[in-house]
């Protein structure tokens, strides 16, 4: 899922300090799971902002709504009838939701309420780690299901660098060396001989090198 982190309250206040009617818009997908932008976080942010403005002696209307998703037209259409009641929207969705909203409601200022961090997994409650960099050409079949692109600081494709010590990365002693993990996993799978197969030069064109990417499936298009 996409992992996001709430922006500091002060930063959000800074965006909207001159606006008198604001919709706080949450998203029921990834940001709900990582507890950054679901309906609960929407309530907390809205309540905090209402208190802030009341304390400042300002009358500001702050309403709450959470959509199923903010990255699909059909869900964003749900606010079409109410959007004119507000002068700005603070979206607690990931950067995709914020941009999709901005494209759909051209004259409405949309402000992000979270910092979108990475594609990751929930290790434990309140603890998320990066697992994928969406490089566009998955090599997990060759690396025992552990991604050196996302998890090796140097994105090395043929074994660890000289900085790998006791299974840890040289940039941070708490960080596992991805290649140590790959070797351990290949060993467990009985496929350690595959470790010696040289990975060819990776085609980075499906990564960000070619600019913003697209996936087009004509068979699905209407």
């Amino acid at each position, binding site marked *: 899922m996409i992992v996001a982190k709430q922006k500091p*309250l*002060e930063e959000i206040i800074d965006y909207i300090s001159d606006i008198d009617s604001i919709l706080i818009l949450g998203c029921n997908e990834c940001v709900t799971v990582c507890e950054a932008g679901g309906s609960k976080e929407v309530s*907390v942010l809205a309540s*905090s902002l209402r*208190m*802030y403005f*009341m*304390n400042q*002696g300002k009358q500001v209307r702050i309403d709450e709504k959470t959509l199923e998703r903010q990255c699909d037209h059909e869900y964003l259409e749900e606010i079409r009838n109410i959007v004119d009641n507000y002068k700005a929207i603070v979206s607690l969705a990931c950067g995709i939701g914020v941009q999709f909203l901005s494209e759909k409601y051209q004259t409405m200022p949309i402000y992000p309420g979270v910092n979108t961090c990475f594609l990751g997994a929930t290790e434990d409650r309140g603890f998320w780690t990066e697992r994928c960099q969406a490089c566009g050409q998955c090599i997990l079949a060759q690396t025992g299901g552990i991604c050196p692109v996302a998890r090796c600081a140097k994105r090395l494709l043929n074994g660890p660098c000289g900085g790998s010590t006791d299974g840890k990365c040289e940039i941070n002693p708490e960080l596992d060396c991805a290649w140590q993990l790959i070797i351990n996993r290949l060993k467990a799978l009985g496929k350690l001989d595959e470790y010696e197969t040289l990975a060819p030069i990776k085609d980075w064109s499906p990564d960000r090198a070619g600019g913003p990417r697209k996936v087009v499936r004509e068979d699905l298009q209407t």
Partner: protein
Amino acid sequence: MRLSYPTDIRIIRVPCTGKVDLVHILHAFEKGADGVCVIGCLEGDCRFKTGNLQAKKRVRQAQVILDAVGVNGQRARMYNLSSGEGPKFAQFAQEIDKIVRDLGPNPIKKALTKKAA
């Protein structure tokens, strides 16, 4: 025991302090409460294992937010006692009452009164 404690404290019963969410605490202040004190079981004695520890974290989160919005975070407090400690409850009630009285009324209340007028 016939213990006395300040009469302006309103008790809201919950099955466990783990039920108290951050938003419940914030809504109380938004509606004009001068202080919120969450009183849970002793740490390590939670029937649901970690309810009181979670409540403690939520009170801390509330304190940070209250400070950021200009309502003093000291107005939210967490206390722990066992169900047999009546005198301690009375003592905590007096303590939060004093803290809140020293801090004065919740500034939000002024805004609410003005709005109603």
